[in-house]
């Protein structure tokens, strides 16, 4: 009982292969416009791919390979979709909304309402049963939307940034709820939030430019990012390049001194990864091995926790506000980012 998918959609430059175990949750990370929503749309049956093949349990969702043109309509797929907006039907009350799926599946009114009550209780929203969707807050409405999706007993639950439209107080409660209900379920969740990926998903994939650029256990992806995007999510600096005997030569021509990990062969594609807190900022070049010193132009300064994050040359450094004031940093200035060799990890990409 697994889910496997490979699908290509040329108009959106999309080509992804993916498979999921029976009770596995996968987080899909990636920049805007990378094709994350396209992925869910293709699985749900709202977007028809040009070619590919997908199987969910014993159902073939679509088979568009080699002259086949089998494509199940959305309502027969068993893949409930939960979007950013709750999209509760405004003309029905909360209970009727949740009973919609069971009713559509052919349950009689009484048993559909019973199922709806069960799932409303499950998301701690029983007291809203008689309300109209317009009378709920964003967080309440999204909880009801979760109940509505689960009431259809989906074989695969698709979540498209379910927390993105919630205010800061409502998100943690929904996150706890999702953790509980996703534990025994197969689900794919699109998120921009590292916390969601860590808390809710067993595995993470990074989608960039319509392709999967990174995949693996969520912790692994965040601890050892191989893509710029995953590094950004993990709050790390990442420089791709070619591994050398004494470190890495970045694609931008920087020579980085570091200790390549075991298994890193010179000449291989690799990445150098380091934390912004490991970067010191100087106004003049600092020499002396084993340090790395790069001249960069400051593009931006922003508060980051109790530090100042300095963005320069595609890298970032965290320094104290006092240090920033002492250096007199302003955008456009040329400064030197200095990193100890031991603070840089170099491994194959």
């Amino acid at each position, binding site marked *: 009982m697994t889910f496997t998918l490979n699908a290509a959609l040329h108009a959106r430059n999309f080509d992804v292969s993916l498979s999921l175990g029976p009770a596995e949750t996968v987080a899909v990370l990636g920049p805007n416009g990378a094709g994350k929503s396209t992925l869910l749309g293709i699985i*749900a*049956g*709202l977007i028809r791919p040009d070619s590919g093949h997908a199987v969910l349990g014993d159902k073939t969702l679509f088979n568009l390979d080699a002259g086949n043109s089998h494509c199940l*309509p*959305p*309502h*027969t*797929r*068993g*893949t*409930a*979709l939960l*979007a950013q*907006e709750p*999209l509760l*039907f*405004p*003309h029905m009350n909360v209970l009727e909304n949740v009973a*919609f*799926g069971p009713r*559509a*599946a052919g349950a009689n009114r009484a048993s559909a309402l019973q199922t709806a009550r069960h799932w409303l209780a499950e998301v*701690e929203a029983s*007291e809203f049963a008689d309300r*109209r*969707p*317009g*009378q*709920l*807050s*964003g*967080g*309440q*409405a999204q909880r009801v939307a979760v109940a*509505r*999706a689960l009431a*259809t007993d989906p074989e695969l639950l*698709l979540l498209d940034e379910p927390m993105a*439209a*919630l*205010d800061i*107080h*409502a998100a943690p*409660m929904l996150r706890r709820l999702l953790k509980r209900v996703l534990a025994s379920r197969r689900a794919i969740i699109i998120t921009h939030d590292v916390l969601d990926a860590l808390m809710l998903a067993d595995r993470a994939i990074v989608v960039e430019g319509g392709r999967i650029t990174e995949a693996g256990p969520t912790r692994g992806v965040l601890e050892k990012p191989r893509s710029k995007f995953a590094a950004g999510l993990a709050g790390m600096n990442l420089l791709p390049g070619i591994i050398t005997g004494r470190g890495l030569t970045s694609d931008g021509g920087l020579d980085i001194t570091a200790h390549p990990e075991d298994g890193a062969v010179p000449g291989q594609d690799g990445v150098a990864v380091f934390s912004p807190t490991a970067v010191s900022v100087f106004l003049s070049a600092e020499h002396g091995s084993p340090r790395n010193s790069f001249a960069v132009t400051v593009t931006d300064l922003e508060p980051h926790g109790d530090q100042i994050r300095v963005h320069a040359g595609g890298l970032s450094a965290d320094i104290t506000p006092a240090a920033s004031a002492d250096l007199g940093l302003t955008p456009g200035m040329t400064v030197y980012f200095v990193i100890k060799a031991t603070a840089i990890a170099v491994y194959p990409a």
Partner: protein
Amino acid sequence: MTPVSAPRSTAWTARTINRRDTGYTGVPPWVFVLAGAGALFVLLPLAAMVAKVNWGQFVPLITSESSLTALGLSLRTSAASTLLCIALGVPLALVLARASFPGQRLLRAFVLLPLVLPPVVGGIALLYTFGRQGLLGRSLDFAGIQIAFSTTAVVLAQTFVALPFLVVSLEGALRTAGTKYEAVAATLGARPTTVLRRVSIPLVLPGLASGAVLSFARCLGEFGATLTFAGSLQGVTRTLPLEIYLQRETDADAAVALSLVLVAVAVAVVGLSYRRPRALAAEPAPTA
């Protein structure tokens, strides 16, 4: 539990801000002057007509047998035409708003044609379709059905001119409502017919209602196509507008009195059911 008055998500803020009265209207004064002229242009003729009413004879005039027959026929045929408009117009609007197929723009143009066509031309077209010598008329004649110059012809003529009103307002409502709710309903396991019945139609009900009211009002006022295609037989095809036109030749007082009745009926119908179209998918503001 979370308080009921918790701030709502981003979805409604923009709308609320737009609606909130800032005290600034941004309408230049001269626009009010022109708008006043426009309002006068509509209201003055109505006032002139009311001034012409012979109030002493008003009740006897509008309760004469021929008047009541014409009014009854108008209301019955307009109701039937409105139902026919809904039966044919809802599928048309759905196909125009949701599907995409070659020739769709052409289809829309032709469906809307009666809006700009002189009704008398529509009547002639109908006559050459359903009349005795018409395209379908001969086959219908064989089956023993004669449509031209019958009450059925009145209904067909009114439907012909009123259908675009329903299609236009419903298609607009469907496009405004968008397909988001329909997509969600489908992923929840609802077949297309179920989605249509339980989601699409309920969401555009205000648009459907206003379209139906506009169609009814247009049916009530239909004259040219009816006269051409259905004639003017008292009790069979002579609707109120035809009766008014006929009376105008012989009894101006009766024509004015009946015109006032028609105005009153039209105002009542539109006023009662045609409310300002709300944002269809919009949820009502929270009560708490």
